[in-house]
């Protein structure tokens, strides 16, 4: 992690694909400096087209949200809250009433590569698959752009790419740099992250590191530091998990994400009941009202 230099798992070559090791991203906003190098590296490596240069007015975030042509997204949260044992300096907006807390939090958002993935379950073409390292991959040449994964993702990650962008019509999202990983390389965003706010590595290692980091932060006065890794819901945990300061809602993360397949049973029961009722009604209509 911090200070590991070339010993960091972000910089080492690996054989996770060959060894079928479950990998993940751990993203830590407490060390993120909001440089957006991850966004740029992702776009460059994966040839993700530009999808407009629009000024949002929301802090320094002009990317907006994850989508078909945005696979890493650095969020800029401006909050009127204390960040750790923040010292209010002479240049603060303090008017002398004891505090005008303000914090700026950056978090690089990405596809969560769910343990139970809504997009993968929904895909009717088999275009979306699970890889050897546990990530979720869209095979671009198979996808016919039906758009069902878009409404099945509990995190709103995957989207269909609109015209006139290259490869329009298909669904796109983070590939976890599967091509790089197959060659023993680290995903582009983690490789380039200057503060190792994004750490790539074995999922179990990262979970342990995440827990340790939360404890460390809480001891240093970051009272609202917590891990965002919904293992208790039907998503059963994510391969790209986050340390967050405050509530998940502020980051646009759903507090209890659910995989939509849990709704299938009640919906199909209702469908079969309706089907049977309709057949009975039709038969009764002709039997009793000739």
């Amino acid at each position, binding site marked *: 992690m911090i200070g590991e230099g070339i010993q960091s798992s972000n910089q080492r070559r690996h054989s996770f694909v060959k060894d079928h090791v479950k990998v993940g991203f751990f993203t830590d906003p407490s060390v993120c400096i909001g440089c957006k190098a991850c966004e740029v590296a992702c776009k460059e490596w994966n040839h993700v087209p530009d999808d407009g240069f629009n000024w*949002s007015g*929301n*802090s320094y975030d002009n990317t907006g*949200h994850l989508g078909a042509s945005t696979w890493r997204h650095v969020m800029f*949260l*401006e*909050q009127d809250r204390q960040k750790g044992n923040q010292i209010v300096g002479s240049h603060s*907006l303090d*008017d002398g009433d004891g505090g*005008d807390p303000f914090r700026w939090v950056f978090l690089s958002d990405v596809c969560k590569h769910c343990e139970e993935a809504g997009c993968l*379950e*929904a*895909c*009717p*073409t*088999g275009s979306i698959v699970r890889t050897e390292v546990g990530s979720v991959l869209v095979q671009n040449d198979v*996808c*016919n*752009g*039906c*758009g069902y994964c*878009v*409404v*099945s*993702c*509990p*995190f*709103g990650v*995957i989207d*269909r*790419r609109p015209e006139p962008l290259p490869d*329009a*019509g*298909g669904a796109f999202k983070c590939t976890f740099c599967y091509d790089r990983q197959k060659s023993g390389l680290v995903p582009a965003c983690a490789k380039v992250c200057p503060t190792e706010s994004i750490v790539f590595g074995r999922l179990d290692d990262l979970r342990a590191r995440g827990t340790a980091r939360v404890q460390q932060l809480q001891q240093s006065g970051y009272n609202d530091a917590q891990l965002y890794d919904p293992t208790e819901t039907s998503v059963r945990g994510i391969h790209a998990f986050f340390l967050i300061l405050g509530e998940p*809602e*502020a*980051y*646009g993360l*759903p*507090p*209890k*994400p659910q995989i939509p397949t849990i*709704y*299938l049973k*009640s*919906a*199909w029961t*209702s*469908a079969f*009941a*309706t*089907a049977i009722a*309709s*057949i009975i009604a039709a038969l009764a*209509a*002709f*039997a*009793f*009202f*000739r």
Partner: protein
Amino acid sequence: MTNEAQSEKRLERLREEAWEKGVVAGRGVDVAGGPIPRKPGYYGQPVVKPPVWTWEVPLYFFFGGLAGMSAVIASAAVIFHHVDLARAAMWLAAIAGAVLSPVLLIMDLGRPRLFLNMLRVFKHRSAMSMGAWILTLFGACVVPGLIALELHAQQIFAGSLDQLLRFSAGIFIFGSAIFGTLLATYTGVLIGATAIPAWFLHRTLLPIHFGTAGLGSAAGLLELLGHRIAALNFLGYYAAGVESALLIWLSLDKQGAANRAIHEHGSGWLIRIGEVLNGPLAIVLRLFGLIPFAALSFLIGALVSRFGWIWVGKISGSDPEAVFASQH
């Protein structure tokens, strides 16, 4: 004084202070609509993605429901020897289910030329995959069923060949009816089992609504085509009755921000207009004996509410507070 006017005045004082002293000691002001988000969520960005589907999908829901339930009516008509009605119903099922529906679905794809990839896999946990197979099997039953029924009804062949045609018409029409009921109802499962709050909160209601709207549409269109028989009138009453009950259910089932797309916005109005047209209004028109008007009212209502449900998905999917509310 409004907040904005106060801010303006404060800004004016700060500017003066800066001009005079070269430095501002006091507290600044929040920019109007400024960067600190005041609502839960990240600058109002959607948490889940709204559907990318356009007009083809609600139109497909309408024709698919009509086609599927036409096959059910055809099947019942065959059993009770209404051959002309069965022929008309099978024509409807074939045109709407084996021609219009696939064309609309292919048009909606981002990459229409890859539509056959839908049949690469069979995934029972994907309602979209199940739907593709249901539509395929429906088409595979309804087309031979129609051909066999027409050949038999027009007495083209005689003897044992005609008996074979009669038998296979029966088998295929029965198959069409089975896959037809699924074709009319699975669309409710399709949008009910998603991450869109206003959809998954109504996953029980949706298949009932879509299936019953299909049945009423099929009966209504057959009546408009001149088949004014008591059995279809009964089905018209049945469908409109069920839809009226669903209208009450939908109106009572308010879950705050989670499903507000159904109770507010134009999307909510579209659903309710649709439900009134194919529920209470269709019943009243039928009671007054205005059967063609009742049938027309039901058909328009069924079409409008399909568009309403897709619109609701777009509103609800873009509403971060709806997602948070549905998970608390």
